[in-house]
């Protein structure tokens, strides 16, 4: 048949590229279709990629991939209206765990590596719909042509209209995604290293919670690149909608906030972008396979939003889908029965295990959002205020007063509810 191959992968992000390269390495025929003019041209993240999972796909990537900076410094900033508590973590000597990258360079590099290993990459081509025959996915329809394959792997990202088309995925709710908006600001190498206290090639990640986010579920962040920094926010779409806030105004708020304004001062805006982040976690996972089709990465909502991990779940789920496709091709059996192996592989990996660990966290946090984002950050700041004050009041007396204030500020029933919510999170994570 004309236009027929063994595997078609839709979407040339980390998930799709990893799936395609895995299939090609086994000597099978695979076509990777990307709508952008090159891989990465439509993609946005924080962000940093993680070393260990990236090595599983590209063992020597540190030698030739376009990397920006090796993350050595983390800073978590908790702000209330008037006070700041921050935790710094510097790990200079450790082997690197993550690198900041620029997606338009890094995804493009990954796609070129995949081409070297036999993946046929087709860019500027938008897959409009899946071709379905007798309940089986048999190919894809682009703007110009129809292409057929034994297996189609969906790696078309968070909005995956294709997974929805064949009923694997339900309509996303605003609560199950966060909207990220971001600016890339040019500062130059010297200013970056001076302001973030870094040596040559070292990078920093700053995260900010609390008041600058107007008490909403979300966070602000800064990542350092070679010559630029990325500054952005990620906020639950549900909260943005309810509060009638414009996302870029919150971003402007973060940029002019005293914790961040010295970092961006005199920088030149070079790009503005936006992207959604899946936040539903384990409970919102779609159906991951059907006859002739597998779903990977963000299209399968595989993101661990508590740790802001996405690219690693994308890469490893892509690899596992690729391995499953190889087995199905060898058996010449593309039924859901055979492709169910993909789900089993995911369940055995860290991906589903981690998502299960955190499965209740978002519900609980949404539920108790006011106290977790309003009352407690204030209380923590008060504690440090008390702890550091030199005011001739005996320390023990101050501790007693502080503890008493928790009970007088807040009704016992609210405290009990918060306590329960907190316990549920901790027990959910540790059990």
């Amino acid at each position, binding site marked *: 048949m004309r236009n027929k191959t063994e595997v078609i992968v839709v979407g040339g992000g980390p998930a799709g590229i990893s799936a395609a390269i895995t299939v090609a390495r086994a000597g099978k025929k695979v076509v990777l279709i990307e709508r952008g003019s090159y891989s990465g041209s439509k993609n*946005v993240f924080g962000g940093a990629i993680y070393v260990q999972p990236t090595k599983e796909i590209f063992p020597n990537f540190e030698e030739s991939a376009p990397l920006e900076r090796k993350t050595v410094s983390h800073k978590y900033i908790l702000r209330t209206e008037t006070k700041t508590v921050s935790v710094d973590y510097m790990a200079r000597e450790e082997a690197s765990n993550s690198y900041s990258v620029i*997606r338009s360079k890094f995804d493009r590099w990954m796609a070129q590596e995949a081409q070297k290993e036999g993946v046929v990459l087709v860019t500027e081509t938008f897959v409009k719909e899946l071709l379905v025959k007798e309940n089986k996915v048999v190919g894809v329809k682009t703007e110009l042509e129809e292409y057929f394959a034994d297996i189609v792997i969906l790696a078309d990202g968070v909005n995956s*209209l294709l997974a929805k088309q064949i009923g694997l995925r339900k309509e996303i*709710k605003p609560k199950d*995604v966060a909207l990220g908006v971001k600016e890339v600001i040019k500062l130059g190498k010297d200013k970056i290293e001076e302001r973030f206290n870094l040596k040559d090639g070292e990078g920093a990640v700053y995260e900010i919670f609390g008041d600058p986010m107007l008490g909403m579920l979300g966070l602000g962040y800064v990542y350092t690149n070679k010559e630029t920094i990325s500054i952005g926010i990620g906020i639950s779409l549900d909260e943005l909608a309810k509060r009638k806030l414009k996302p*870029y105004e919150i971003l402007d708020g973060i940029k002019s906030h005293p914790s961040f304004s010295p970092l961006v001062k005199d920088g030149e805006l*070079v790009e503005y*972008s936006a*992207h959604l982040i899946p936040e539903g976690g384990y409970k919102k996972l779609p159906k991951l396979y059907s006859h002739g089709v597998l779903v990977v990465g963000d299209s399968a909502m595989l993101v661990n939003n508590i740790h802001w991990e996405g690219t690693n779940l994308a890469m490893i789920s892509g690899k596992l889908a690729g391995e499953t496709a190889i087995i199905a091709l060898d058996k010449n059996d593309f039924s859901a029965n055979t492709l169910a192996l993909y789900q089993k592989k995911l369940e055995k990996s860290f991906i589903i295990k981690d998502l299960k660990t955190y499965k209740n966290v978002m519900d609980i946090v949404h539920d108790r959002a006011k106290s977790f984002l309003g009352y407690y950050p204030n209380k923590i700041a008060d504690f440090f205020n008390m702890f550091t004050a030199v005011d001739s009041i005996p320390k023990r007396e101050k501790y007693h007063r502080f503890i008493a204030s928790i009970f007088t500020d807040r009704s016992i029933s609210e405290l009990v509810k918060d306590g329960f919510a907190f316990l549920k999170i901790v027990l959910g994570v540790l059990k």
Partner: protein
Amino acid sequence: MTDKEKKQSSIDDKLFKVKYVSDEESHLKPDAIQCLVCKSKVCTYICPANVYEWDEENKRLIIGYENCLECGACRIACEKKCIDWAYPKGTKGVTFKHG
């Protein structure tokens, strides 16, 4: 500059930096009848590119689809779930150089 003007110029500056190739036809098609009865007009503030503006006089949405960043937020947040939403054609739309 008033506060409102400052805010407008800040988003204009941001959008000015984005690289687009625009199509002749909009890839964003809300159902105008639903928009008439929609109370929140949530698309007009949720969109990170300020694509939607409500024209009170003519009772319709003005859609600056050329500025769309292709995030998908409006489709999910729309009060009436009535936006016929697609990505622009393969050669069109936004290109991120940094992402």
